[in-house]
Structure formats: C-alpha cells, structure tokens
C-alpha cells in the first residue's frame, strides 16, 4: 500500500472541467483509489489540483503519460506517522495539504518533537476534524520521481473553510507555539521557508479506514 499526494499544474488556457474528466477516466482505467480536488484561491506554491492516490502493490509510474494538458507535477509518496479523527464521516468538507521540508542537520529527537507538536494541533482546535502527519518516503520517491524537496506531508480535513482561515490561523497554539518551527527569525526554526499550502473541496473523507487504508 503506497500513498501519494500530487500537486498538478495545467498548461495555460486548459479547461479544468475537460481535464478533470480526462484524468478521472485515466485513474479509473488504472484502478487506483483517488481523490481529485480543484485547489481553492489562497493556495500558494501549489498547483491547480490536489490529487491523492492510494496504490495497491504496483505503482503505475506512467499514470500521467500522454496527458498533454499537464504543465508539471509534484508527486510525493509518503508513510503516515499518525492520524486521527474527531467526527464521523462527513461530506463536502475542506482538505488542506501542507508540504514542508525540515532542513538537514537536525537531531531526530528535535524533529520528533516538531512532529508531536504538529500532531497536537487538533487537541486545541475543534475545526480540525481529521488529520494525518506523514514522512515522505524517500526510497520510493527516488525510484518513482527523483528526490523530493519535501520531508513531511501534513493533511487536515476541516468542516468549513472558515475553520482553516479562522480558528487554525488565529489560534495561539499556531502563531504562538508551532509557528516558531517555521519562522526563520527564531533560532530554532527547522522548516525551510518554502512551503506548499494547498486546499480544495473534499467530497468524502480521505482519512477513513474503509476508503484510505
């Protein structure tokens, strides 16, 4: 079981609806479990779409071959460290994907504390309904797509956009605690300043044992 998240950029002038339909046909032919979401305005350093995939035994490395509407792809394979949920399955929520890179040279105990601090965010914020923190699977990444510039994938599901833009951003646990890992003015900043922050509508939860094993 291999999990992948993809940021997908379209060539200029391409009709998103037509492309979406083409890509869905391709993914269904391949038989991979997937969710395709069109990124919402406010996304930065992300593509037009967020595509999440769960591969069975075999990864189809050529799944995007021949789709000439695609300008570029950022394919990231990962392994979940921990995930959780605080609500039953909900529909039509918001899916946020943060891709980040921990700068090299930090001791593993420091990186693990950073991971624990991120994973504790839902304990303070009601709006985070489901969440998963993962490490980029570098072996697989190298095999499939070359070395990734990301080390971690931090995904959350929100009931509504206001929960992401409001509670999540405005909570003191965010700006007054976790943020020091991301702010280069702090001596203990460990995340590279270039991050990818993407969010899209989510029709069905991706953090669910039945759908997303």
């Amino acid at each position: 079981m291999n999990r992948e998240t993809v940021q997908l950029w379209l060539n200029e002038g391409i009709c998103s609806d037509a492309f979406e339909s083409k890509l869905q046909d391709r993914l269904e032919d391949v038989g991979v479990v997937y969710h395709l979401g069109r990124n919402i305005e406010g996304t930065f350093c992300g593509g037009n779409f967020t595509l999440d995939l769960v591969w069975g035994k075999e990864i189809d490395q050529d799944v995007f071959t021949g789709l000439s509407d695609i300008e570029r792809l950022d394919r990231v394979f990962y392994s979940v460290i921990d995930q959780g949920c605080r609500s039953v399955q909900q529909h039509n929520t918001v899916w946020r994907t943060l891709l980040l890179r921990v700068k090299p040279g930090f001791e593993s105990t420091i990186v693990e504390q950073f991971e624990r601090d991120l994973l504790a965010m839902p304990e303070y914020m009601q709006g985070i309904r489901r969440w998963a923190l993962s490490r980029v699977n570098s072996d697989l990444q190298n095999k499939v797509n070359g070395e990734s510039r990301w080390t971690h994938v931090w995904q959350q599901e929100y009931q509504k956009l206001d929960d992401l833009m409001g509670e999540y951003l405005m909570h003191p646990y965010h700006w007054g605690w976790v943020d020091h890992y991301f702010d280069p003015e702090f001596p203990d900043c460990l995340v590279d300043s270039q991050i990818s922050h993407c969010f899209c509508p989510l029709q069905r939860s991706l953090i669910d044992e039945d759908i997303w094993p």
Partner: protein
Amino acid sequence: MISILDEIQLPAGELLSMLQRLEKDYLPQAEERGLSLVAQWVSPPVVVPGKPNTLWLQWQVADVMSYYGIRAGQTEEVSIFWEEVDAIASERRRHVMVAADTVLPTKLENLSEAKS
C-alpha cells in the same frame, strides 16, 4: 497586542556594536513589517571580562494577522542580520508573549471524541 522578546547573550564588550548593527540593519525594515521596538535592556549593567551581557529587545505587534505579516515581509537582509547575530551571540532565544492576565487556551475538553 502581541509582544516579542529577543534574548541575546553576547560576549563581554560586544554590546555597542550589536546595538549599532540593530539600528542600521534591522530596525528600518522592522518598522515597515509592523514590528515596533518598545524597549532594550541589558544585564548585568557592567562589563565583566569573560562573562556575557544579555540583551533583551522587546517588540510589539498589533495583532495576529500582523504577526504573520512580519514573516511575509521578511527579506534576505533579515536572514543575514540574524546569521550575523548568531555568529557573535553565545545563545539566543525569541519569546512570543501576551499580557499575563490573558485567559490562555488549553487543550479541548472533549478530547474523548478525538481518536487515532
């Protein structure tokens, strides 16, 4: 209102040059980014050979969005400034603070509904 406190431990005799560097390389763009210098303190109030002087810089930021704005406005000069400070300082910490009578958020009570 959010306060930021920089705590910079300097080798004896480095205080004056650090303040000059702050004035020249950091303060002008700090104000533009919404970071206002409120106070500067140093301890101990004497240079003792071999003992550090700790410099505290207290800053104010209007609100949470302004706090994020400080980062959004960061330039390469800001990074260079802190790299140079860190090359001199034996230790540095940055604290984020609110008024002590603020009711601090705690973990949610309904954690039982969160499961991994």
